[in-house]
């Protein structure tokens, strides 16, 4: 089922939608746009009618798998249900049509919402202040590292290294590099947790921060976190929390209490704002008070019963994006927090941990489970037990797609061969998890009985396995017009 590109649906001569005329007196000739500033060629945008457009996008939508349709066991991505009330809240005209450069006195509701969200996130993470500005998790990581960098500089220290565990998300080293830090890898021990001995050998006066997620990407709680925090702080370095896995912890324990100095949170994971096929998300960063002076501008302050954007922050790292953050996502997250309350959020995390442990137990003997449980909100299995049949994690993933599921995260974390990373979230019922576990077993059985069939899957999806190597060798990144037509200027 091949859906043409919008450009291929284009019909020459289609006049475009009806729009108003200018309806104003013709401006004087001196206002005419000089010829050398005018566009010479009309951009070759598609010309299609509204009904054709709606059908095109409806058909495209039908080619997508989504959490609204079924279980999405993608590890490290926290694919939980996105409550539809969140969407209704963000679309309220009082939020959606608010201009960022309105007088603050006319935007008190928006500022109050951000202030309340900041307070709630401080409580969940155990930090003193939160900036809501970062647009995504990776953006939050970078923002936090910029603050840590500024903190050390303000103390007259030149620290040029950031420690990152070998199990970390790829964004961690990339964010550190973007801040000009040298990245030093810390090894994991045999139990899947950070090697304290290796950490000790790499900590010194050059280290600005250790980036850590807890539970780590194997879904395991770093039991020695308090010792790790003490070691890091003893050298004057800061401890940074990658909040990708915060969904395991709400109401159970708090990164701030563990000793983390800066914490980013993914509102699109833990706080149910939708993923949008790859954004927009939001990656607020919480900090302890000694990093507060370095928060991006502006912060939101309550003064004399009014909310204000505070731009007068001399030690601030500056702005990390335009305006005040992905406000529409902040509205959604705050709506979720209001509806859930403290008890509800705690229940969500407990249920997420329970679901992961249950599913993990159901996959015992089906896939390899290289680390001992219990796990937190996710776990990493390995398909290496199927290697003798020539079957890889990729084949397991495609077999699951064929049977109506999205695939778990595969080949991550890098320290587990043939990794299959599963995060069920609190959204899923026992029945859903059972059905999924049965399907994984069906795929694993097929790997033994008929691996060739598995290699050929998926066969019933809109396309089969695509040749990504050929696509990267000779990249075709746009549709190409056969010709472009000349235009006149106004």
């Amino acid at each position, binding site marked *: 089922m091949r859906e043409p*590109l919008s450009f291929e649906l284009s019909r020459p001569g*289609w006049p*475009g939608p009806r*729009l108003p*005329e200018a*309806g*104003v007196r*013709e*401006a*004087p000739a001196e206002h005419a*746009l000089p010829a050398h*500033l005018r*566009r010479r060629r009309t951009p*070759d*945008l*598609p010309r*299609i009618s*509204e009904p054709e457009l*709606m059908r095109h996008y409806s058909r*495209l*939508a039908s080619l997508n*798998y*989504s*959490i609204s349709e079924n279980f999405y066991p993608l590890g490290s991505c926290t694919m939980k249900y996105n409550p539809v009330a969140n*969407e209704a809240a963000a679309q309220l005209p009082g939020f*959606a049509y608010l*201009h960022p450069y309105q007088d603050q006195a006319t935007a008190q*509701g928006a500022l109050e919402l951000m202030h309340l969200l900041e307070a709630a996130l401080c409580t969940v993470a155990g930090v003193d202040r939160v900036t809501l500005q970062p*647009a*995504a998790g*990776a953006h939050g990581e970078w923002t936090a590292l910029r603050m840590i960098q500024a903190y050390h500089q303000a103390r007259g220290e030149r620290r040029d290294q950031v420690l990152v565990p070998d199990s970390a998300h*790829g964004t961690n080293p*990339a964010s550190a590099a973007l801040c000009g830090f040298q*990245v030093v890898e810390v090894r994991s021990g045999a139990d899947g947790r950070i090697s304290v001995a290796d950490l000790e050998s790499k900590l010194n006066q050059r280290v600005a921060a250790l980036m850590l997620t807890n539970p780590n990407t194997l879904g395991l*709680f770093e039991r020695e976190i308090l010792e790790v925090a003490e070691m890091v702080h003893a050298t004057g370095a800061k401890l940074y929390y990658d909040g990708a896995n915060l969904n395991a912890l709400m*109401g*159970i*324990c708090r990164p701030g209490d563990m000793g983390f100095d800066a914490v980013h949170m993914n509102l699109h994971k833990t706080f149910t704002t939708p*993923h949008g*096929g*790859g*954004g*927009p998300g939001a990656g607020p960063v919480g900090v302890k008070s000694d990093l507060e002076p370095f928060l991006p*501008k502006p912060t939101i302050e309550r003064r004399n019963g009014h909310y204000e954007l505070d731009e007068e922050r001399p030690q601030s790292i*500056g*702005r990390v994006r*335009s305006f005040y953050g992905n406000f529409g996502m902040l509205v959604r997250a705050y709506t979720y927090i209001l509806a859930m*309350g403290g*008890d509800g959020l705690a229940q969500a995390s407990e249920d997420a941990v329970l679901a992961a442990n249950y599913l993990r137990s159901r996959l015992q003997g089906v896939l390899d489970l290289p680390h001992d449980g*219990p796990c937190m909100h996710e776990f990493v299995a390995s398909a290496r037990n199927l290697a003798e049949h020539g079957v890889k994690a990729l084949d397991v993933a495609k077999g699951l797609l064929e049977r109506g599921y*999205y695939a778990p995260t595969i080949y991550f974390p890098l320290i587990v061969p043939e990794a299959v990373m599963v995060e069920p979230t609190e959204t899923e019922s026992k029945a859903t998890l059972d059905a999924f576990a049965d399907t994984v077993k069906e795929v694993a059985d097929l790997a033994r009985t008929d691996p060739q069939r598995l290699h*050929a899957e998926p066969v019933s999806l809109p396309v089969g*396995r*695509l*040749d990504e190597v050929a*696509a990267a060798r000779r*990249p075709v*990144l746009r*549709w190409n017009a056969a010709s472009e037509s000349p235009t006149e200027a*106004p």
Partner: protein
Amino acid sequence: MLEALGAGSMDELLVDVPASLRLRRLDLAPGLSELETMARVRELAARNRVFDDRLTFRGGGVYRRFVPAAVGAVLSKPEFYTAYTPYQPEASQGTLQAIFEFQTLIAQLTGLDVANASLYDGATAVAEAAMMAVVHTGRPEVVVAPYLHPEYLEVLRCYAEGRGFQVRIGTDPGNDSAALVFQSPDFLGLIADGSQVTELAHAAGALAIACVDPISLALLAAPGEYGADIAVGEGQQLGLAPSYGGPHVGFIACRQELVRRLPGRLVGEAHDGQGRRGYVLTLTAREQHIRREKATSNICTNHSLCALAASVYLTYMGPDGLRQVADVSYRRAHALADELSQLPEIELLHPDRPFFNEFPVRMKNVLHRLRALEAEGILGGLPVARWYPELEDVAVFCCTELNDPDALAQLVAALRKTV
């Protein structure tokens, strides 16, 4: 499930969490029903003042524009908004093809060879483009022409300080300059001569980075037409609500030679074993999940759903619709400028400089007058002295297709009363 696990309580699953860290309770208010939640949220929304579309004359990077109902209808499809980044292409062809179309639309609009799957916003797009230039040329500074959006400049400086390159205001790139960044129309609404600026950059061996308004490109010379190397911009005007500043969408396009330096996601065409066409995330060897600290950027996701809005908007409009939107905005802004310049105590700041749909006006007691307009339900121009002390008493007024002729007359009459 606990029973099936043979666990007596949740505590048995949480044994790895040190007891000293365990919380007794999460100290937030109890949860609310949907009815109560929405009432509370509505109450907050009601404490914001929203000005009528037609009577909003403020831009400064975020604009009120007509958004076809088709955009909302497509964006509210859960198959789009509740999907993840398209890691499994066979189950994500909808998102992948939509992004491929977005890349093509942006390439067409900017007149450049390739565009990526989108970035967070216009400000970070400028910063990412500057970093591309620094890596590409190996030079230590980026020169920025005056009146780049002041927040974009602040963001660029924040990235530059981290990465370790200099940012200098000027139009005189030299041997140390990686790029000359310019915005057109700039923050005051004035149009730059793209060919001239690009020549300045190239004469110094620097890249020319144009920050552009996508609607204006229906009328104004495209970066690709005047030889710019990278074009970036903010796509909010293409079907997205102001939403107090976000989420919006940044775009970046460049010449073919620079494609492997692009940050973020790229979607490419691919084929399956039966020769069927499909789309995949491609050239991922630039990206953080493969390259880690050697990646071109740390960006992981893009603003996919916002890019989808832009695609639906541009597809709905087509070349003629977009041209009409640009043309109406242009004509009305020029008619308004003409009317305003005839009012006493009001003058155009740059009567000889060409502009698109925003223009700076000098008027005495500008803040007082703007407040008087607000009392009449009009959101007037943007006062800019907070960024540019030399522009005291200057406000930048903006017109789009939403400001109908009656609205213009209403604004002029209201301003006349403030004289």
